[in-house]
């Protein structure tokens, strides 16, 4: 069982390395995070707050946009691509179960994202330390950012697998993946914001809104990271919300894990019904 899962996972990593996908993802993360760290820290210099912490606060917002996109782009081809190439017939006629296959894909893709995050954000942390802007607390913030970004990535991998096995065609799956990204990181927040304004402190704001933040892994991620940084003083906005919520920030992490598990279960159920 483990050999088969590892076989799928290591092949997926190899493909990620071979087609320079990993390189591209790392470069994107490194470029954006360096830009934010170097340009964004200029005005914070006199505030007396750790430069790394400030950077991590901006990087959390960057992760909300980039990590789900990278994950969905990796995941959309996972099942639909194998069906399209005809390799799904070969793989599923060998003694591997559909769940093992899905787990293997997820581990391989997760490893690619984790490596890209470690290299991309790690480079930024390294640059900050090298220029004397680092501290132990700041490094812990960085580690937390990378770990939770990886969690966010895993959640959107699972959501991407749903798109991939529901459509069974790479083109449609890619379009659906982009649609999911747009909805989760842009439209969802806009809709919540609109509803909050319209509701003006009514039942929606008090009972539905906090749960709606948990239901979307992107929002839950932002909520947890900004709360953990104590960043409401630094960046305001969404982060200020966390003080008024009826649950501790760690509930946001549990929510991401819950959504991930549910998405995996749905993807596995869809995959089991496929006649390759």
């Amino acid at each position, binding site marked *: 069982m483990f*050999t088969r899962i590892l*076989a799928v996972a290591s092949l997926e990593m190899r493909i990620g390395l071979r087609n320079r996908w990993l390189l591209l993802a790392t470069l994107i993360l490194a470029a954006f995070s360096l830009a934010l760290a170097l340009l964004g820290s200029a005005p914070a210099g006199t505030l007396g707050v750790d430069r790394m912490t400030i950077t991590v606060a901006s990087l959390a917002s960057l992760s909300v946009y980039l990590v789900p996109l990278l994950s969905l782009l990796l995941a959309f081809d996972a099942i639909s691509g194998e069906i399209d*190439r005809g390799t799904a017939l*070969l793989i599923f006629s*060998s003694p591997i179960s559909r769940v093992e296959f899905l787990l293997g894909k997820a581990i391989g893709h997760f490893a690619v994202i984790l490596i890209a995050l470690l290299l991309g954000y790690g480079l930024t942390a390294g640059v900050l330390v090298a220029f004397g802007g680092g501290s132990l607390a700041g490094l812990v913030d960085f580690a937390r950012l990378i770990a939770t970004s990886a969690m966010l990535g895993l959640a959107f991998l699972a959501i991407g697998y749903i798109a991939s096995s529901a459509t069974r065609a790479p083109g449609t799956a890619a379009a659906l993946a982009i649609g999911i990204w747009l909805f989760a990181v842009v439209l969802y927040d806009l809709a919540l914001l609109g509803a909050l304004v319209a509701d003006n402190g009514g039942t929606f704001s008090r009972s539905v809104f906090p749960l709606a933040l948990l239901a979307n892994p992107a929002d839950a991620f932002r909520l947890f990271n900004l709360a953990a940084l104590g960043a409401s003083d630094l960046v305001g906005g969404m982060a200020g919300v966390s003080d008024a919520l009826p649950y501790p920030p760690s509930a946001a992490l549990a929510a991401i894990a819950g959504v991930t598990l549910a998405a995996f279960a749905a993807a596995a159920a869809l995959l089991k019904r496929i006649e*390759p």
Partner: protein
Amino acid sequence: MTESVLSIKNLTKRFGRQTAVDGVSFHIEPGERAALIGHNGAGKTTLIKSILGFLTPEEGSISVLGNAPGSNAARRSVAYLPEAVAFQKALTGVEILTFFSRLKGEDPKTVPGLLEKVGLSEAGRRRVGTYSKGMRQRLGLAQALIGEPSLVLLDEPTSGLDPVSRQDFYMLVEEVAARGAAVLLSSHALSEVEAKTDRVLIMAHGKLVADDTLASLRRAARLPIRLRVQGADVAADEIAARLGGMRVNCRSVEIFCDADEKLAHLAAISALGSLVEDVEVTLPSLDDVYRHFTGVDAKKGS
């Protein structure tokens, strides 16, 4: 008697109102090379996918060495090469075979040997994107040979291959069968598998319309032999009158006869002496045999 590698009883598979496979039964024994012939849409791929357990039949049963299709035991003993498979272009032949060895629980150490067997030792370290169609097909076959399977299913393995590659491909199939594996390969032309298989199964409209050796099928079809007599002069009418054949143009006459009448006809032709310039004897082609069997079914089915 040894146990059948594959035994199919009264298999029926429908897609909505369309019956793709209709009451098919046959057995395949170890070491046998069977060809499954039928035109596009005759139900060959549906049958193969049912054997693999991807499709659940409405009626009938399939047993692979006594196991249910798609069960782990069955999957371990069956190897499969689909009709159109495109391996990841970025990977090398070695990487792909290593991957499938691991999936099948076999030692990846056998990979170099497999590549050598299909003539890809040198190309093994190159990316599949650089392979020719014949090389990709041979890589697919190498994949199907991992772990010495008992049943090898090849879905139109030679379509699109040039004659030399096809010849090489059948040599490999022969080796596999010689080792004791049963091979079931599908093709849309009987002429493609000539002399390369022990047994021919012909499918038409989802039904199995013939199941025998090629020689027996030829005999059973009782297709006429065609003798084409070319006159030395413009004497086709006279030749036609004396031999009882049909005039096709001003110089040639065609006679159709059964195999056992052939010699008598040839004797009559040679008796005409200088009137005849040439005789051409045409045996029924494999395509004629195929058309005979599938045509019979069309009449019955309507």
